[in-house]
């Protein structure tokens, strides 16, 4: 039997189905709702009102919470707040930012003000350059956040699920955010409950503890100090299947100790041991190979490393680029919205990008896509073309163009004038290039299938060159998790070597005397220093180029020094992008300007035989490599001999004839040079790949 339609009872109509409340809901709510809102109070959402009511009911009874409301909001870098644990919903970072605006009010009025202090805002914006245009967080969340701030009196927060939130012990802010995002992670739910139980007992003690400082909350009780596992424990663990929950906790504890090593260390244990344990644990927890994790630990400081690893677990948002040859972003956005796609402009820095939040239709199959109105492309792939800034009527070379996203962007910036040579060494992937170029209506492109290293022999004299070099892919781990384990030292070295060859070819293919151009953009989707800064530094030494500003005003600057290597100071103009800071794939971009077409020859007195054999053609970069670069020869280096065999091995494909005189000269060299202790040099291409 259906519900009888009662015309006298008017259903409340409003946005969404849930506007229809069940009969009696008003009665229930009246129990919770305050009699009347205080004047000047912000109007609370229903969720907020319930919380307020519960707080009032439960205040003073039950386990004392803690309520570091001062820490409200904030991205992952801020200190742990249990708010994050409370809210079952995913936090949008925008919301946090919104929540922070209300933090202006100082201090807390109740008795907790002694130990409860508003946290210093370390970062007010989640790295300001957030690509993901945060849609204004739902009003509900925002008001809920702000209400938290205002209501500093609540000591114990009981969330809707009845579990009382408690001061988080060891969870870093990013851990909390991770907890939020991975409710299905097996370890985490246990984590919560365990933390809560522990914390409930400990919280009474903590209540009286003085906060050590506004931005460091004591999460550990003194008697719960993190201890390194003993060898028996290690053996036991090795025997059993790994318990992610335990590992996770250990990671947190370990990080805690490492942050404040002097105080929290165990006597007699070195930092190395802690680091080694951390590395093992993180490798187990996030499924990375030890090699890769070591490399990452060199690049990132520890808290950032966790952010990076977490960011790699989550896919980046889907982004598209409007094809301005056929439509305008406005029109496209309208058309897609009509189809049921939820999207937003990508950011201030891009006039053609759109980010897709969700969609009812497959984005890769809409009639607009098929008509070539847009292209599915990662946000970071827009950057190198923006840096390249191709002008109309130029000749451009795109050396590694597949699947054609950057090429088509170049064409659209040039408005189909000029010429583009789109090259790729893989014939299979070129099919997608042709398909994309046709679909998007690019008419000024020639597609070729050559090895990039053959340029400029095939064709030279371009105005600009874009080299999106093949790399290890460590920046796009979220797209391809296999990279976590299948990359090792040799792979990185191989990539670096190929990239060095390609960049020299790219530089040689540009005409420095071109009126409008003379630029080379080198980019990779990797974050490894060997593939990025080292290659750039190598090119600077080998050719008459200099680095110029990329024109991208956001992004982290490239390294000018790394471990024991020192790079040219102009590397500050290169840019690095990371998944955890910019919410786009890891990327590296460098822009060169070629100021002379001449290829710097190697030092003359070193190897006259080689000089004679080497014509000034493509082989030059390879030949001039074994002789040292433009360094003074008086400072002899024993590792020159080391360098010589290595290129001979790796470049066997090219110019074996020219290599032979080299080999003959080498023993001569050995006699010439007195052996001196190897002085650490940067950018040498050693066989063991350092």
């Amino acid at each position: 039997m259906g519900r009888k339609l009662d015309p006298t009872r008017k259903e409340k109509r409003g946005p969404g189905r849930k506007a229809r409340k069940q009969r009696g809901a008003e009665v229930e709510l009246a129990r919770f709702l305050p009699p009347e809102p205080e004047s000047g109070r912000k109007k609370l959402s229903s969720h907020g009102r319930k919380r307020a009511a519960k707080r009032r009911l439960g205040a003073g009874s039950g386990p004392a919470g803690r309520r570091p409301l001062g820490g409200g909001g904030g991205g992952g870098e801020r200190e742990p707040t249990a708010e994050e644990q409370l809210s079952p919903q995913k936090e949008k970072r925008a919301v946090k930012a919104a929540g922070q605006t209300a933090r202006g009010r100082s201090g807390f009025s109740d008795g907790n003000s002694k130990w409860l202090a508003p946290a210093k805002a370390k970062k007010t914006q989640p790295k300001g350059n957030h690509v993901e245009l945060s849609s204004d967080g739902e009003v509900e969340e925002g008001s809920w956040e702000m209400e938290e701030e205002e209501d500093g009196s609540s000591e114990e927060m009981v969330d809707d699920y009845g579990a009382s939130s408690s001061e988080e012990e060891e969870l870093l802010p990013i851990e909390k955010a991770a907890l939020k995002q991975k409710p299905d992670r097996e370890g985490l739910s246990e984590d919560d409950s365990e933390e809560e139980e522990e914390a409930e007992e400990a919280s009474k003690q903590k209540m009286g503890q003085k906060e050590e400082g506004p931005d460091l909350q004591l999460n550990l009780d003194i008697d719960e100090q993190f201890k390194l596992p003993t060898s028996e424990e290690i053996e036991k663990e090795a025997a059993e299947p790994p318990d992610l929950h335990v590992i996770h906790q250990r990671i947190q504890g370990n990080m805690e100790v490492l942050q404040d090593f002097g105080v929290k260390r165990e006597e007699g244990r070195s930092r190395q041991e802690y680091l080694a344990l951390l590395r093992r644990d993180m490798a187990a927890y996030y499924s990375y190979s030890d090699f890769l994790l070591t490399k990452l630990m060199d690049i990132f400081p520890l808290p950032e490393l966790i952010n990076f690893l977490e960011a790699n677990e989550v896919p980046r948002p889907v982004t598209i680029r409007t094809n301005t040859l056929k439509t305008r972003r406005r029109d496209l956005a309208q058309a897609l919205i009509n189809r049921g796609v939820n999207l937003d402009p990508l950011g201030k820095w891009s006039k053609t990008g759109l980010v897709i939040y969700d969609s009812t239709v497959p984005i890769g199959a809409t009639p607009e896509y098929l008509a070539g109105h847009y292209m599915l492309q990662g946000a970071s792939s827009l950057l190198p073309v923006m840096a390249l800034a191709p002008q109309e009527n130029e000749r451009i070379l795109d050396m590694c163009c597949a699947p054609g996203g950057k090429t088509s962007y170049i064409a659209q910036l040039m408005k189909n004038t000029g010429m583009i040579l789109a090259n790729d060494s893989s014939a299979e992937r070129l099919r997608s290039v042709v398909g994309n170029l046709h679909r998007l209506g690019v008419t000024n492109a020639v597609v070729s299938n050559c090895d990039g290293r053959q340029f400029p022999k095939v064709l030279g004299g371009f105005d600009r060159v874009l080299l999106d070099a093949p790399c290890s892919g460590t920046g796009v781990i979220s797209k391809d998790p296999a990279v976590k384990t299948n990359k090792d030292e040799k792979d990185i070295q191989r990539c670096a070597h190929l990239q060095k060859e390609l960049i020299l070819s790219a530089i040689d293919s540009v005409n420095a005397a071109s009126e409008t151009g003379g630029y080379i953009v080198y980019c990779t989707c990797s974050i490894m220093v060997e593939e990025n800064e080292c290659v750039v530094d190598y090119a600077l030494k080998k050719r008459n180029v200099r680095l110029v500003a990329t024109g991208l005003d956001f992004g982290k600057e490239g390294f000018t020094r790394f471990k024991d290597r020192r790079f040219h100071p102009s590397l500050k103009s290169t840019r690095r992008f990371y998944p955890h800071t910019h919410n786009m794939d890891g990327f590296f971009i460098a822009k060169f300007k070629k100021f002379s077409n001449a290829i710097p020859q190697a030092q003359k007195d070193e190897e006259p035989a080689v000089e004679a054999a080497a014509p000034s053609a493509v082989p030059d970069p390879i030949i001039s490599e074994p002789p040292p670069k433009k360094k003074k020869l008086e400072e002899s280096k024993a590792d020159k001999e080391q360098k010589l065999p290595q290129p001979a091995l790796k470049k066997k494909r090219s110019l074996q004839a020219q290599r032979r005189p080299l080999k003959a000269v080498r023993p001569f060299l050995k006699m010439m040079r007195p052996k001196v202790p190897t002085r650490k040099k940067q950018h040498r291409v050693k066989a063991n790949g350092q």
Partner: protein
Amino acid sequence: MRPLTEAETRAVFEKLGKYIGENIQLLVDRPDGTYCFRLHRDRVYYLSEKLLKLAASVPRESLVAAGSCFGKFTKSQKFRLSVTALDFLAPYAKVGHGPERPRAGPAAPLSAAPLSQYKVWVKPGSEQSFLYGNHVLKSGLGRVTESTAQYQGVVVYSMADVPLGFGVAAKSTQECRKVDPLAIVVFHQADVGEYVRNEDTLT
């Protein structure tokens, strides 16, 4: 990459003529330069002379594509027009939109008449069906240009004036009015869905 022979040129122009009539000259003499057709691995490419110079210097084995592919010659030397020619055969100025939007596509023809004179508009419901490669039925037919002869080449549009592909009119306009809803009115020749369906065979 070689120029087309007499016979080949005739075949191509004949096919093109079915869709755009006598306006082929407009394709060749454009305000931004002379364009030409070239044959490479049985495919006909349409490119400007400037691009030709660049394409000629690429070694033949390495050249994959140049400019835009219009179609290919089958083994028996018949010319099949492919969907990649759509941009050039569809008219430039779109009906129903206000001032000329900035088009960086092929330049507008010298004459005011659009290149393609015979158009068919398809209702939103049967858009998808056409994009899957099916013929257009009377029930999916939105509009059709007047005086379309039978077996005339037509360009198929969606109601939003987005070109979807080519076809051949199965019935003249007069007959279209009389025929029953499930009859085929446009034979499918090429559609943009092929970019997704037949990615591999585009090259």
